[in-house]
């Protein structure tokens, strides 16, 4: 009792400490509660603004996909996208649009910053099929889906929400009947089309497109490798410039050496030449070969053919597209130190030896920034390990009458033709492409003669084209033999042209091409066919294996034309649609092909037909191919169908389908 007389000071201090701790704790709780309330107060308007941003994106997508998919205009699906390109929604012309950058919105005295990001999306399969991938892969880009992320930030936090927007309205355009014929500019009758440029048959097999002609015949032989002029591809006068000769390999063989024709050589530096694979029409940039050394070096001193051995052999696969690439290696280069490779016109897209189609043949030129198609026939050869050759050996025109490099005139006593040996079949028609050299008509008609050179016997002769009919541009004319001639493989035949009444001033012109002697095996039919001419009215003929008459066809009864073309009506998709893939069904026998190009626009007037790489020189030749992305976001569509054949058989198109999304 005596001890409990009041508290000690230390007890009071402890009580005070405990009390202070409680006070601080309660204060903190109140602070947290107040702060939570403050954040909650910001969350409602932030959520509202984020939701408005996403709804604006939905509106833009619904109104016009292109405004969202190409936020900066143009047709590059990668441009203006990604997290480094913020946008914000604005109201314009009674609709939502995108404007670049962030925006600041003030609500009840508080500022909110809002932006919208657009990202491309890829899927696990091509053509918009499969699941969306976590990591974007450009090669499997889905043209019909994008990811939108809207973010609204405020002092102390942010609201971020993402949404995938899809052009869900996927549709198919299909045509499987063309019997209605041409003349329909705009799509309404599903059996009609806009135009055929000759060579197609839409009624022979109902519901299919075939080449014109009939079964049972075809070409016995033909050379359509017209050479009308020669050009340099482009001077390689700085170290960034490259040149490519693109071709489809004809054989499964190993290339040991390559040959090119130099149009110009000026104090040349050293260049490198080699083989590269194709990457969407352009060289891949990587040399082929087991150790990537499928190239060689050369420093030419003269124009003409240049042969270069490769450091290591490069195996080629028949039917695959390759590039013979030439680029600067070392030495001084400039305006007076360069080379230029030769090419020829027109672009025949054929292999001269047998006229096999090579739709990928072309010349390309790299300016230092990008590859450009030159649209000219490449002049090159490949030397295989088995000593065989492949390529286009014709390096110039050849005029045997005047022995120079111009077109060949036919007049007076100057007869020109082509010899053949080893041919079999029943010859019914002879077709030759010629022109008149002046506006005035020649004085006489142009005759064609079939001559048995082995037995010195004229088989038949007649008028190929009348003096009043022939035009000044090259055109094909047909002479039908009065009765078919059965050819014997052991005999040498000669088909020649003559016009004795015509003078040199109004001569008929034909085109003949010449190659270097070692390359004769890959000229037209090799040694089996030669250019023949007479300067003494046919008393005797000179034959030259290095040269060939450029445009001559020998046909048996029946058969098919070698190419036919059809342009569809304009299909109106109703909006700036995205075009996904092209598919077709039909039949492609050996040496025939079914090729498509697609043109789209918004004015239903300007038709620029393009292939899968976006150029006019390529074709969709495999069904279920993705359509060139630049074709998308246009309203109107037309397709161009090209059927090709060697004349023996015809390809058959039964149905074409184009997948698109609104």
């Amino acid at each position, binding site marked *: 009792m005596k*001890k409990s007389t009041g*508290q000690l000071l230390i007890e009071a201090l402890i009580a005070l400490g405990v*009390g*202070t701790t409680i006070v601080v704790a309660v204060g903190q709780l109140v602070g947290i509660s107040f702060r939570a*309330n403050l954040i909650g*107060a910001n969350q409602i308007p932030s959520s509202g603004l984020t*939701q408005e941003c996403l709804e604006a994106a939905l509106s833009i997508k619904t109104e016009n996909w292109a405004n969202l998919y190409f936020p900066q205009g143009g047709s590059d699906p990668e441009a203006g996208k990604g997290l480094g390109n913020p946008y914000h929604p604005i109201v314009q012309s009674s609709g939502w649009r995108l404007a670049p950058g962030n925006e600041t919105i003030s*609500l009840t005295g508080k500022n909110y910053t809002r932006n919208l990001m657009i990202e491309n999306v890829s899927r696990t399969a091509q053509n918009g099929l499969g699941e969306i991938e976590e990591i974007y892969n450009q090669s499997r880009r889905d043209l019909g889906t994008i990811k939108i992320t809207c973010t609204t930030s405020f002092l102390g936090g942010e609201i971020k929400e993402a949404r995938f927007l899809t052009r869900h309205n996927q549709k198919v355009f299909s045509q499987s009947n063309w019997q209605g014929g041409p003349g329909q500019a705009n799509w309404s009758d599903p059996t009609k089309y806009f135009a055929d440029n000759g060579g197609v048959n839409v009624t022979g097999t109902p519901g299919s497109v075939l080449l014109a002609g009939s079964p049972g015949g075809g070409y016995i032989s033909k050379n359509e490798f017209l050479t009308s002029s020669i050009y340099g591809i482009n001077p390689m006068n700085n170290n960034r410039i490259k040149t490519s000769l693109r071709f489809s390999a004809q054989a499964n063989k190993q290339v040991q050496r390559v040959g090119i024709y130099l149009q110009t050589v000026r104090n040349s530096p050293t260049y490198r030449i080699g083989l590269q694979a194709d990457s969407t029409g352009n060289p891949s940039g990587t040399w082929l070969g087991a150790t990537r050394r499928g190239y060689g070096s050369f420093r030419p001193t003269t124009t003409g053919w240049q042969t270069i051995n490769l450091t290591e052999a490069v195996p080629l696969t028949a039917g695959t597209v390759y590039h013979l690439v030439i680029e600067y290696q070392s030495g001084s280069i400039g305006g007076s130190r360069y080379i230029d490779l030769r090419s020829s016109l027109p672009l025949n897209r054929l292999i001269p030896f047998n006229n096999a189609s090579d739709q990928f043949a072309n010349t390309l030129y790299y300016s230092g920034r990008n590859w450009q198609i030159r649209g000219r026939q490449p002049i090159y050869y490949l030397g295989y390990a088995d000593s065989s050759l492949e390529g286009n050996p014709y390096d110039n025109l050849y005029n045997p009458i005047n022995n120079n490099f111009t077109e060949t005139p036919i007049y007076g006593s100057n007869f020109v033709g082509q010899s053949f040996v080893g041919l079999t079949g029943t010859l019914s028609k002879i077709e030759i492409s010629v022109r008149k050299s002046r506006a005035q008509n020649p004085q006489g008609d142009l005759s064609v003669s079939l001559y048995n050179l082995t037995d010195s016997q004229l088989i038949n002769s007649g008028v190929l084209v009348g003096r009043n009919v022939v035009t000044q541009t090259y055109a094909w004319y047909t002479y039908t033999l009065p009765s078919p001639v059965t050819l014997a493989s052991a005999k040498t035949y000669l088909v020649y042209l003559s016009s004795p009444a015509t003078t040199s001033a109004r001569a008929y012109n034909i085109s003949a091409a010449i190659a270097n002697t070692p390359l004769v095996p890959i000229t037209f039919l090799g040694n089996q066919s030669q250019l023949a001419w007479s300067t003494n009215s046919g008393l005797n003929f000179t034959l030259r294996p290095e040269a060939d008459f450029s445009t001559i066809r020998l046909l048996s009864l029946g058969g098919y034309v070698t190419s036919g073309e059809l342009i569809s009506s304009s299909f109106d998709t109703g909006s700036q649609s995205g075009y996904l893939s092209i598919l077709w069904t039909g039949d492609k026998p050996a040496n025939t092909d079914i090729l498509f190009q697609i043109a789209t626009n918004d004015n239903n007037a300007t038709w620029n037909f393009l292939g899968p790489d976006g150029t006019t020189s390529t074709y969709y030749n495999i069904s279920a191919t993705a359509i060139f992305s630049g074709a998308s976001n246009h309203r109107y569509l037309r397709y161009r169908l090209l059927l090709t054949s060697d004349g023996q058989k015809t390809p058959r198109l039964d149905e074409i389908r184009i997948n698109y999304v609104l």
Partner: protein
Amino acid sequence: MFCEQKKQKSHGYSILELSIYMALLVVVLTLAADLLFGFTRSRVKIEVSSEIQQNLRFASEEISRSIEQAKAIGSISGSNLTLTMPDTTSDPISFRLNNYVLEISKAGSAFAPLTTQPVKVTNLNFGAIANSTVRSVQVKITIESQNKSQSNQFTTVLRGK
């Protein structure tokens, strides 16, 4: 004698102890009183904010949901909006501002309040962003109570068919 003196010293506090104790007590009581007032003030603020937020959230969600389900805008002007609904049991839905109260009417029934007293809807604005392809309504709303206010802004695309 010595023992008696020791006992006398242990009785009560010394004047110094008492003074220190009193001073500490005053400090503690002052802090406690301040805390009590602060806590009460904060609680009132939080309650007011919560009231505003609840009303703002509920009103925004109700308007947004109605616009999303609507198939057409019947009429739109300032704080009045009438929506054409696909479902006849709720067609039309109208919103209006009546004496600082946001009200809703469904299928021609009498207007009923969407916001509760004592909060006041001091601003309500409906704006149509519509063309022939897509229609949306932009909504701006401000709710106030006891000198505190909060706003929201959102847009909803009409999806009804």
